[in-house]
């Protein structure tokens, strides 16, 4: 009991510490990053920096798992790797995840160790290196209008009386420090005259006329995030292998080969919430205890297709709750032990709740419809995103 309370207190302290550290950041971070916008399910499939997971907190077999990418570690040590010309060359390393896990018993004592590797064969979600994404942004009609407006303003301001303060004021506007309504009249008039001069910029003209608190930075961020969110709905396919060694067992006693595929199925729809197809499959090789000696002669196949329903907030479309429904099929290739079945069907449900920006609490439920068994697990996942911070450090 004391152990459980200690565990929960540790998790809560960790959560608050993460928040406090984030609040101490000297650079305001109004921009949502890919990690903070990504669904919890996506970050579970492939992590882009570090993830610390406390799995099965209420189960006798708890797991403390650390997942990371080698590139994140290397880039943290040598930030020059983040410069685009070098960054692009490390795509393979960024698509690789490694993990280490400690298994703990009900008294939080060491009960085993796990290690694994995962590689993304198809990763169309990494917009940071996709030229296609850059082209999508640059060819967006609204973005083109804003570029044209910017060119027009920068061309006109030098010819206005007192151009220096006007240029500083315009810069404050583009950086989002002041809204359209707070601009001086010559700047407002010039913008309106340009926006009203063509049918192609009519929407911009009407927005400026009707919205005095129009904020350029918020507008461009919103456009960018919308396009990024659509891009993050592309396909991701990973393959990997994990080994778990329980206490008093030999190494490679429980080897799992796994693969997972996720892809959004409503990419271009205007709906607020998303639907994500999630298919996972694994082949588990374990020791056949009925045979003498050590072997990996017992094979269990598992296939789990599911749908993840992502509920996003209205304005910034950031997921705050995810509901995943899946079916599970298990097949034993070898002899069946007593009280075991050759084939099993399960119904699974996972509720993921975001409690902080990068901390998710997934609650898993498994139901065996044939025998009426119900199991539940509660986990905590903390995703760390420090690449952006490292990039900022380059220029401090």
């Amino acid at each position, binding site marked *: 009991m004391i152990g459980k309370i200690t565990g929960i207190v540790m998790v809560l302290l960790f959560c608050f510490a993460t928040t406090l550290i984030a609040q101490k950041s000297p650079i305001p971070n109004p921009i949502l990053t890919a990690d903070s916008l990504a669904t919890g399910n996506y970050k579970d499939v492939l992590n882009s920096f570090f993830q610390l997971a406390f799995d099965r907190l209420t189960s006798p077999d708890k797991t403390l798992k650390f997942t990371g990418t080698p590139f994140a570690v290397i880039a943290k040590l040598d*930030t020059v790797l983040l410069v*685009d010309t070098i960054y692009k060359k490390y795509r393979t390393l960024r698509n690789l995840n490694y993990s280490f896990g400690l298994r703990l018993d009900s008294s939080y004592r060491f009960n085993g160790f796990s290690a694994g590797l995962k590689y993304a064969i198809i990763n169309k979600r990494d917009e940071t290196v996709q030229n296609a994404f850059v082209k999508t942004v640059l060819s967006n009609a609204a973005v083109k209008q804003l570029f044209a407006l910017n060119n027009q303003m*920068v061309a006109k301001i030098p010819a206005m009386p007192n151009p220096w303060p006007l240029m500083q004021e315009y810069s404050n506007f583009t950086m989002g420090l002041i809204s359209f309504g707070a601009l001086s009249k010559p700047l407002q008039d010039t913008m309106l005259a340009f926006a009203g001069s063509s049918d192609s910029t009519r929407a911009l003209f009407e927005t400026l006329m009707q919205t005095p608190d129009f904020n350029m930075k918020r507008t461009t961020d919103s456009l960018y995030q919308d396009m990024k969110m659509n891009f993050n709905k592309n396909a991701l396919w990973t393959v990997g292998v994990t080994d778990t060694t329980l206490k008093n067992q030999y190494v490679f006693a429980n080897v799992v080969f796994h693969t997972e595929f996720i892809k959004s199925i409503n990419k271009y729809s205007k709906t607020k919430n998303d639907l994500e197809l999630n298919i996972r499959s694994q082949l588990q090789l374990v020791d056949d205890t009925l045979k003498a000696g050590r072997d990996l002669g017992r094979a269990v196949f598992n296939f789990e297709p599911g749908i993840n329903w992502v509920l996003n907030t209205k304005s910034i479309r950031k997921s705050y709750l995810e509901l995943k429904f899946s079916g599970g099929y298990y097949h034993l290739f070898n002899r069946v032990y007593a009280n075991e079945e050759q084939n099993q069907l399960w119904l699974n449900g996972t509720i993921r709740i975001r409690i902080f920006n990068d901390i998710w609490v997934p609650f898993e439920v498994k139901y065996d419809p044939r025998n009426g068994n119900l199991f539940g697990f509660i986990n905590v996942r903390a995703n760390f995103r420090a690449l952006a911070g490292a990039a900022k450090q380059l220029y401090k």
Partner: protein
Amino acid sequence: MAKSVKKAIPKRKPQAHLSLQPGSNATTKPTNHTNMPKLTTTSLVAESAPHSLQVSITFTFTGGIGQATSLLFRNGVLINMQSISSSGNIRFSEVQSGDSISVNGVCTGHAVIVIDTPTVPVSPQQFAAGIILTGYLIQ
């Protein structure tokens, strides 16, 4: 028709147009800010002057890729335009005080723009992942 063009060319005074400086006496004429300036072949040429300088704009994209286009304006007329699709420099020659530079682009990670001459606003300017939209007035 061809003759009329030939006759029109010597009558032009491109230097007068390009030498206009903000705040100078030449700007006493009332100007209509809402009309686009006329773009001619001569106005696209940056005229050399004793106070002209070469300006270098350095783009550094980190944690992702980026693209940017810089446009150099003099008296509202576009006189040079260059694009960049990875970290590096854009160089504008014959830049004068009062010229303005607009920068449009996108970065998927983090971007820093540094201009090697005094400008308003001051550089370097940093941009988080998103659309880059800014402008500078050469001091």
